């Protein structure tokens, strides 16, 4: 699946997007965040404050317990500050 990063998450991870292939045991958003955080220093920093991370599956806001099995694209970003 495709992972997208925005704003401070993007800056810390260091890339805007990438193809990821998490193990089958990673079933929902919370588990995917844990898995991503374990991938290196930038990821660890980007996902350190779990409560400040929002996720969207295929461009729809997703809760922590949302399953990721059928996701084509999953985006991570901090709380929105538009408007």
């Amino acid at each position: 699946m495709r992972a997208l990063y925005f704003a401070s998450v993007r800056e810390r991870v260091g890339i805007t997007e990438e193809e990821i292939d998490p193990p089958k045991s990673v079933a929902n958003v919370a588990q995917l965040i844990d898995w991503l955080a374990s991938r290196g220093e930038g990821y660890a920093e980007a996902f350190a404050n779990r409560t400040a991370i929002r996720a969207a599956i295929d461009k729809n806001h997703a809760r922590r317990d949302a399953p990721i099995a059928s996701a084509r694209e999953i985006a991570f970003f901090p709380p929105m500050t538009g408007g």
Partner: protein
Amino acid sequence: MIAPNVRVTNEPFDAYREEALLIEGCRDIGAVVTFTGLCRDEAGTLVALELEHFPGMAEQEIAAVAGEALARWPLLGLTVIHRYGLIGPGEKIVLVVAAARHRGEAFQASEFLMDFLKTRAPFWKKEHRSDGAAGGWVEAKASDDAAASRWGKDTS
């Protein structure tokens, strides 16, 4: 029910033209509420805001909130425009125009739009400081969540 006019753009927009287009030809409109959000210079410390957005999802989320507003209030016109990219102090970032027969509907719909746009639409502001120091990402405010929650059930 009317269709909302939603646009996400990196170009400046003409608020006056948008309002005129919305009103034009509808003689049943008694009230128009226009909200404009502008870039503040923060007492001279800010040289620009950089607005990052999630293309596709930004339009979709604004359209969803607009649809919810149209379901709640009998609006006769609704336009929402949000810019992204580099925006200088005094420039307009966001525009909401709500037209209705009566003022209460237009006021409530435009406030509702702004409250949920703030908490749902994927935009992020980064500050560029005039002293050259590294600008930071603007922090989300708890008051914005509170503003959205007063409308009852979450629209997500």
